[in-house]
């Protein structure tokens, strides 16, 4: 009997211990399950976020490929970043003639004068291997390194993302946050990925702009080509007709230019043309139109200018051209130009009519000994003038 009790006691003790063991194991297992569950939830959350990011990226890509307007692309880039990379201020800069110029909405950030204007980029368009990763500057408002980027807020963190096109940097993008450590490596990576998409769009848009620019400009002198001149002249002519305004045209031709080419070679001739074009360009008012009309022939359309005003204008340029000094083969030389001037007449139905008269006057200037300005006059006046000359 006693033995039976002892045996039962032993069993009971073991049973108790086993139960305790089981409790511990089950607790451990449920904790494990809890962590696994949390891990799963995190994974689901990350997955959802990644999907959302992918959707926005996809949409961005479609938008970028469809757009050619730089400001539109920049604004869109900013709005995407606002959704995907939390921040307080963003700015997009593109290189224009070697200088970073802000673009997109809010071009002029509220910086108290210390913003985009003060932005002196530390990157160059042909920079030696620019960082492929965004630059993150913590404590940006106090860091001198952040200064060139024009910190716009009392920002804690600044992220600079380069905009890459094949072989060069198109510009950059800055994101500012008032929070410390605002940008995680994942956020930086995402910002770079979005920026890369935008870069392609920027590059396309810049190329398009360049092609557009080239198609209207004379390749050598950078002033309007004949085609563009015809377009602009026509526009000004219509305006003048509509508002009954005066409008003058000048035809200009370099004297003995063939001789310059023959004596000094075409490259010197080209330099002369560029210098003359510069002189002409400097003389222009904003609304005036200048173009290279042919080889060494230039023309002007001067809105709201009568023939006397045009004459004075041409005379100024004539003197400026005469004053240019060139040198070739150790010898200095100068050039001169002849000008024909006329204004719109009531019966004119196109700018071509004015130009034709200016051309006649130019012909007269050449015939009269070159390096001069001749104003077109009606035949009867001209005949009268000739009679005077003969009698005088």
């Amino acid at each position, binding site marked *: 009997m006693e*033995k039976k009790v002892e*045996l039962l006691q*032993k*069993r009971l003790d*073991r049973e108790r*211990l*086993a*139960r305790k*063991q*089981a409790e511990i*194991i*089950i607790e451990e*297992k449920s904790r494990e399950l809890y962590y696994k569950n949390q891990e799963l939830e995190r994974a689901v959350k990350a997955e959802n976020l990644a999907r959302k990011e992918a959707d926005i990226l996809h949409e961005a890509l479609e938008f970028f490929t469809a757009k050619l307007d730089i400001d539109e692309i920049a604004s869109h880039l900013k709005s995407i970043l606002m959704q995907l990379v939390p921040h307080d201020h963003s700015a997009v800069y593109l290189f224009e003639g070697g200088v970073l110029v802000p673009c997109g909405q809010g071009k002029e950030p509220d910086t108290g004068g210390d913003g985009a204007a003060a932005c002196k980029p530390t990157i160059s368009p042909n920079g030696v291997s620019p960082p492929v990763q965004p630059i993150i500057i913590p404590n940006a408002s106090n860091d001198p390194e952040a200064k060139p980027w024009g910190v716009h807020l009392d920002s804690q963190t600044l992220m600079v993302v380069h905009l890459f096109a094949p072989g060069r940097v198109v510009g950059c993008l800055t994101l500012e946050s008032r929070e410390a450590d605002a940008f995680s490596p994942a956020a930086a990576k995402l910002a770079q990925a979005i920026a890369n998409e935008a870069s392609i769009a920027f590059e396309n848009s810049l190329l398009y702009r360049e092609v557009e620019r080239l198609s209207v400009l004379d390749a050598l002198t950078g002033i309007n080509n004949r085609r563009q001149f015809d377009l602009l002249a026509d526009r000004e002519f219509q305006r003048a007709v509509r508002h009954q305004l005066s409008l003058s045209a000048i035809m200009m031709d370099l004297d003995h230019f063939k001789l310059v080419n023959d004596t000094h070679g075409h490259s010197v001739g080209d330099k002369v043309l560029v210098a003359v074009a510069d002189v002409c360009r400097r003389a222009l008012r904003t609304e005036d139109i200048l173009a290279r009309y042919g080889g060494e022939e230039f023309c002007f359309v001067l809105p709201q200018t009568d023939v006397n005003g045009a004459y004075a204008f041409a005379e100024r340029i004539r003197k400026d051209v005469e004053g240019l000094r060139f040198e070739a083969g150790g010898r200095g030389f100068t050039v001169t130009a002849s000008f024909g001037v006329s204004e719109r007449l009531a019966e004119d139905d196109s700018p071509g009519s004015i130009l034709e008269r200016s051309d006649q006057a130019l012909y007269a200037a050449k015939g009269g000994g070159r390096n001069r300005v001749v104003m077109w006059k009606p035949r009867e006046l001209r005949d009268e003038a000739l009679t005077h000359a003969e009698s005088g």
Partner: protein
Amino acid sequence: MLAQVNLHAIEEGLPMKGMVFTEFMELVDEKLSPETTESLLEMSDLPSGGVYTSVGNYDPQEMVTLVTNLSGMTGTPVPDLLKIFGRHLFKRFLVSFPEFFEGITSSLEFLPRVDGYVHVEVRKLYPDAELPAFTCDVPEPGSMTMTYESKRHLAPLAEGLILACIDHYGESLEVSSETMATDPPVTRFLIAPKQS
């Protein structure tokens, strides 16, 4: 004729499910006596103190000690003990996992399902379980070969399970076994109609 059981090999592999221990002790309680179980535990002086829970995992070495000592106490060879244990476990499986036997009417129908279905389900419940592999073949209608592969070297236990299965369906089949390899151990059982 059963091959010699290499009990030391049981040590290899993963810890053993607590259920195997609780079932083993229940078997000794049932077939012999609670007193025998107590003496066996006392004699074995196990690290766990003989405290097992079905949700736990334990050192397989403890099972080796228990079976060896029980063999010493009773004079029954280890393979025979394992075979008896196999029969006992089958009865437990019938009660604990009736879904495995649903719609099955014979052992030749059930046994091929062990590897492809039963063990798949077991693994869902116990992802860390160390399970043997079984491959079945039908050399001729009405018989079957079943090849057993396990790091645990428990072929006699498998044989006990097969025999209990045959009994469960009240069939007139007999089981013979053949050792195909020893390291790792491979045993092939032939299940064929009784020669009468």
